[in-house]
């Protein structure tokens, strides 16, 4: 073959043939990032509430966790869980390793986001709730946390979008999600340009859909119940 750039003929039928497999991969991307989003949001909120209510020891531990996971690459975290932990006798499947690392990484950011949200709720709200006869736990549960979540929501949404994109890294430990499928197909048919282009398009659609969903949730939340 003596083909230069001009000799390259696009073959979009390769995308067409690969589409079912690509969409199957996208399904796993949605599954793993969806589960990770829910767990990371819950863990982040729990940790943020813990730092506001528990003692100095707990606060120190949460701070250490947050800084450790925010300041090291997700890829290294995934490798430590999948390749490193078996050395200590803990062998997890690629799914659990990937999910675990994604959750721990995103929750570290979410904890910071929720903490900022909790601190942004005016002090008077807490005092008013207590003088209204609520216990401190009830005040937290029914007055402070709902407002904090509302304040934190836009930043949380950005982090969840990042999580969706970051889920592509679990392809490195053999999870057959969208990124893995794109590699798999294009290494077999050499239609790298078309296949990666198609995979990019699927990611863009997923990100736009999630962004839209988050915006709907945000306006719904802003409306008083």
């Amino acid at each position: 073959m003596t083909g230069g750039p001009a000799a390259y003929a696009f073959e979009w039928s390769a995308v067409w043939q690969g589409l079912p497999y690509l969409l199957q991969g996208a399904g796993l991307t949605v599954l793993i990032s969806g589960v990770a989003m829910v767990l990371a949001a819950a863990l982040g909120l729990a940790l943020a509430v813990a730092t506001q209510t528990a003692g100095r020891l707990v606060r120190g531990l949460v701070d250490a966790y947050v800084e450790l996971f925010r300041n090291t690459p997700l890829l290294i975290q995934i490798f430590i869980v999948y390749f490193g932990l078996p050395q200590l006798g803990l062998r997890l499947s690629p799914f659990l390793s990937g999910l675990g690392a994604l959750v721990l990484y995103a929750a570290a950011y979410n904890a910071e986001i929720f903490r900022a949200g909790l601190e942004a709720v005016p002090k008077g709200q807490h005092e008013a709730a207590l003088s209204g006869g609520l216990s401190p736990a009830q005040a937290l549960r029914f007055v402070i946390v709902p407002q904090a979540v509302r304040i934190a929501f836009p930043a949380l949404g950005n982090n969840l979008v990042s999580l969706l994109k970051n889920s592509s890294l679990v392809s490195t430990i053999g999870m057959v999600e969208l990124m893995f499928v794109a590699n798999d197909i294009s290494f077999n048919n050499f239609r790298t340009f078309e296949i990666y282009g198609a995979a990019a398009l699927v990611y863009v659609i997923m990100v736009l859909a999630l962004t839209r969903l988050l915006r709907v949730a945000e306006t719904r939340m802003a409306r008083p119940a």
Partner: protein
Amino acid sequence: MSVLVQSLPHLLRGAVSTLALAAAVLAVGTALGLAVGLLRVLPGRAGTVVGGAVELVRAVPLLLLLFFIFFGLPALGVRIPTFPAAVLAMSLWMAANTAEVVRGGVQSISRGQFEAARSLGLGWASTMRFVILPQATRRMLPPFVGLCTILVKDTSLAAIIGVFELTRAAQETIERTLRSFEIYGAAAAMYFALCFPLTRLAARLETRLGRP
């Protein structure tokens, strides 16, 4: 433990390459991002088109961007070696996110500032240069430093296409020693040493510059 000591020089060489990669991306990506960011806040159609392109790049995972440039472009006859391919992919990513920071900074300045400057007879460029950007820069700095932290972490993806940097150095060491936990742990510690000061700086800038 002795394995760790023996592999330290190789890991440190990797860390130096990580810094070189991050510095190259910082230079190219930031310059491009500032230009794109200013184009994006242009009034009218141009700003919208640039904004669409930025959103498109930001919606694609960096890993896919990297594969697209390293494996996808050769199909068109554009063959780029690993290091420049990584710099190019990450610079696109950096530029799109920097442009977003610029937009956020400019839009955070109240409209009255624009209107006041324009009514004094300043053109769009002078308004930007003398009124808006001096104020907006203060607001851009904390998120930009945060972006740099993410950049340093994300240079690890270059290992996947075979660029020699810290993560690749760790993988090479593990191929010889089979001590994943310790070696990846050591690599993580080195990333932490690079990123933690940046995170602290971003937090301090936020409290210092955030005050009116």
